[in-house]
Structures are given as structure tokens and as C-alpha cells.
């Protein structure tokens, strides 16, 4: 029996504000497109980010990843960066970045796709999916590029 590969998921929560507004449209078009999400001073959400990592289960521990190491990574790259911030004003983003939850998911994917493999020096770990809930009613799943062909399995 080969070593099983397990997808391990951990959820993190942070609170941030944003405003949906794009300079390429008139104020009226912005209001028509984004509704109350366009209100000038922004509004906030309690975001939930679920990181899914895929890798072989280590025989000596039974783990895919060291949980303290993953939590420390999420603390550094997610919570310390974004918790209690205004995403539009965030220095991580360029001035024209539109902080929709979709765009935030792509930004987080860029960060964690790069950082997650570094948690395993033998190179057997990858980010397989990011899920973000903006509210209990809205959620977004972003599979990694490497996982897209597998989604139908």
C-alpha cells in the first residue's frame, strides 16, 4: 500500500472592511453595479478563510503538515496582514485593486501557493484549495491550478 495523500483543511477568521468601487466607471455606474457595497466609507465582514493542503501522511507522526507551522504561516500571511484593516487602503494591494472577495481569494492563492510548499522541505505539500466565506450566505472556492483538472473526479 502506497502512502495515502490526504487533503487537510484548517479554517481561519478575520474581520476587515472594504468598498467596491472602480475608477473606470462613473459614480452612477458604480452605484448601479455595486449597490450598497459602493457606500463611500465602506463596510465590513467577518471573513472565514479555509486553506486546504494536500500531501502524504507522514508515517512517524500521522500528519500531513505540522499544525503549529501552518497556524504560524496563517498568522503571518493572513491574520497579521488583513485582520482589522481596510482592504482598499491596504499596502499589500495596488491602488486600483478592487477588493471583491473573488479578487481577495486570488491574492491569497498567490501567497499561499508559494508559501505552503515551503512548510515541507521534501517538496510533497501543496495548496489544493482556498475557500472564503464573506458572510454565511456567500462563499467562494478557488482550487489551485494544479487541482483544476481533478475537480470532476
Amino acid at each position, binding site marked *: *500500500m*502506497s*502512502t*495515502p*495523500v*490526504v*487533503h*487537510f*483543511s*484548517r*479554517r*481561519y477568521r478575520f474581520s476587515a472592511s472594504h468598498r467596491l468601487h472602480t475608477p473606470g466607471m462613473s459614480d452612477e455606474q458604480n452605484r448601479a453595479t455595486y449597490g450598497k457595497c459602493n457606500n463611500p466609507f465602506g463596510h465590513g465582514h467577518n471573513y472565514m478563510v479555509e486553506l*486546504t493542503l*494536500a*500531501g502524504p*501522511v507522514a*508515517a*512517524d*507522526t*500521522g*500528519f*500531513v503538515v505540522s*499544525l*503549529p507551522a501552518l497556524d504560524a504561516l496563517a498568522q503571518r500571511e493572513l491574520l497579521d496582514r488583513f485582520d482589522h484593516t481596510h482592504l482598499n487602503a491596504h499596502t499589500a494591494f495596488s491602488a486600483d485593486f478592487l477588493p471583491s472577495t473573488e479578487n481577495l481569494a486570488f491574492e491569497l492563492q498567490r501567497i499561499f*501557493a*508559494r508559501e505552503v*510548499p515551503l512548510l515541507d522541505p521534501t*517538496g*510533497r*505539500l*501543496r*495548496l*489544493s484549495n482556498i475557500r472564503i466565506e464573506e458572510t454565511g450566505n456567500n462563499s467562494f472556492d478557488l482550487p*489551485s*491550478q*494544479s*487541482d483544476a483538472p*481533478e475537480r470532476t*473526479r
Partner: protein
Amino acid sequence: MIFLTRKAEFSSAHFYRNPAWSDEQNREAFGKCANPNGHGHNYTLEVTVAGEVNPATGFVVDLKLLKDILEREVVSVYDHRHLNHEVPEFALANPTTENIAVAIWRRLDGKVPNARLHRVRVYEMADLFADYYGESADLLDRNATALNAQTVA
């Protein structure tokens, strides 16, 4: 083809220990989870099967039957038990969330009539869970990790 998911719950005790390591190494690797008398969780199991709808019944598999299979193969063995001491697959391997997902897959594989086991998901807590897609997915996963290493490099 359609996917169908059934939930079940079990409450079990466990601890993590590698007998090849010193007490100090175990504490270092597993923290509080190494406490020798163990601790417990309310686990939630989600089993997803894939299959075709039987035109006579409108079902892929009778949910009552699936419930009974989960009860017989998993819940009756794990619930209100100490996983390390009382469940044979964890006599040597740590009952981590990852290993529990793999063990439940092996218990259920081939047991559900007219359906293919697709995914076993085990929640240890609401914010921590593991998914296993079976041995045939292991190779796909290894390829995806290699692909990912190229795309993020």
C-alpha cells in the same frame, strides 16, 4: 452521475505518541496531544458516494442503508471508545484526523452497493478536518503536487 453525502457523529478519546521517540520528543512534536491519558473529540464524519440514479426508486443508494453501513462499519467501532487502545488500526499508527479519514475509507471501500466511494471527510473540530479520496486518487495527487511545484517556482 451524482454525489450523495451522509453525515454521522462519534465521540472518541485519543492521544498522539510515537513509541520510537523519547517522552521529550513526543511532547515536542505533539504538545498537549501527547498527554498519556488522552483527551477526546466529537468527530463528524461525512461520507460522499457517487453513482447513477436508479430509475425505479429515484435513489442512488437508499439513505437508510447508507446510514446502517456507517453505523455498522464505523460508528459502532469508534463511538465512545479510546481509539489508541480499542481500535485495531490505531494500535501502531496515531489516530490523527488524517489517519482516521484513511482508516474509515478502508473500512467503507466496497461496502456501499451501487455506488462508488468518492470522499471521506472527518472533522475533529469545526475548524479542522481531513479529506481522503482513496488510493486511486493518490497518484493524481502526487502529479498535482509536482505540477504545482513547477507553476509556483
